[in-house]
């Protein structure tokens, strides 16, 4: 039976944080799941969060389906981004993101999926679904989250990293 175990978590403190890093990720699980609840201090309703593996910013590709208050569409890109609520979203609201990375410790390229949504009591909201690939054979040992504009994650933003074992 599969098990789902918390590896580590972090909550941003009162001073904010420009980057969140999960380092020294053990290779003992089958898959990884990262669940985040994020808000940045960017002066808009929404911010994008860059997702970096092993400090690498290259060899990423993705296909994304997304919708907002007015339209739905798809695109492709090279750097996968998550969603974050930002400074003009309803106060005390946070986005939700889940990243699933199967076989993260293997020697094949790493696929991943992302499910993101913002929260806002207004006309603008956004939801993304992403299928991504990191064309790198290294085992994943660190994950870094950085606001694309921000510049900071605000207090009470959280990130929880779980390990999935298949036996």
């Amino acid at each position: 039976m599969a098990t789902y175990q918390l590896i580590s978590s972090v909550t941003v403190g009162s001073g904010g944080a420009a980057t969140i890093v999960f380092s020294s990720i053990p290779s003992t699980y089958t898959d990884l799941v990262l669940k985040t609840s994020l808000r940045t201090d960017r002066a808009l309703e929404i911010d994008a969060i860059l997702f970096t593996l092993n400090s690498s910013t290259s060899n990423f590709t993705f296909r994304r389906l997304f919708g907002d208050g007015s339209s739905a569409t798809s695109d492709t890109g090279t750097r996968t981004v998550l969603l974050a609520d930002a400074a003009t979203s309803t106060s005390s609201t946070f986005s939700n993101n889940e990243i699933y990375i199967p076989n993260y410790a293997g020697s094949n390229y790493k696929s991943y999926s992302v499910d993101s949504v913002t929260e806002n009591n207004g006309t603008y909201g956004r939801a993304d679904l992403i299928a991504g690939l990191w064309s790198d054979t290294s085992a994943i040992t660190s994950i870094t989250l950085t606001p694309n504009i921000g510049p900071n994650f605000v207090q009470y933003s959280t990130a929880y990293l779980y390990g999935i074992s298949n036996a």
Partner: protein
Amino acid sequence: MPTKLIVDCSTGVTTEVELSQDEIAEREAMAAEYAAQKAQEEADKAAKAEAKAELLDRLGITEEEAQLLLG
């Protein structure tokens, strides 16, 4: 000074450290690149909408009528 939170998954310990000047410069470059990319996307979108409006105008039909023709 901006900081980063590093969660060491082998120990469970979280440390907060200041970003280096290189990391700050990298972040600023990333933000500039993203802003430029977004500006280009908006410009492309606006140009496409303008071209579409011009074509409809030349044809003398509305967008709904064009949809009917294509349907």
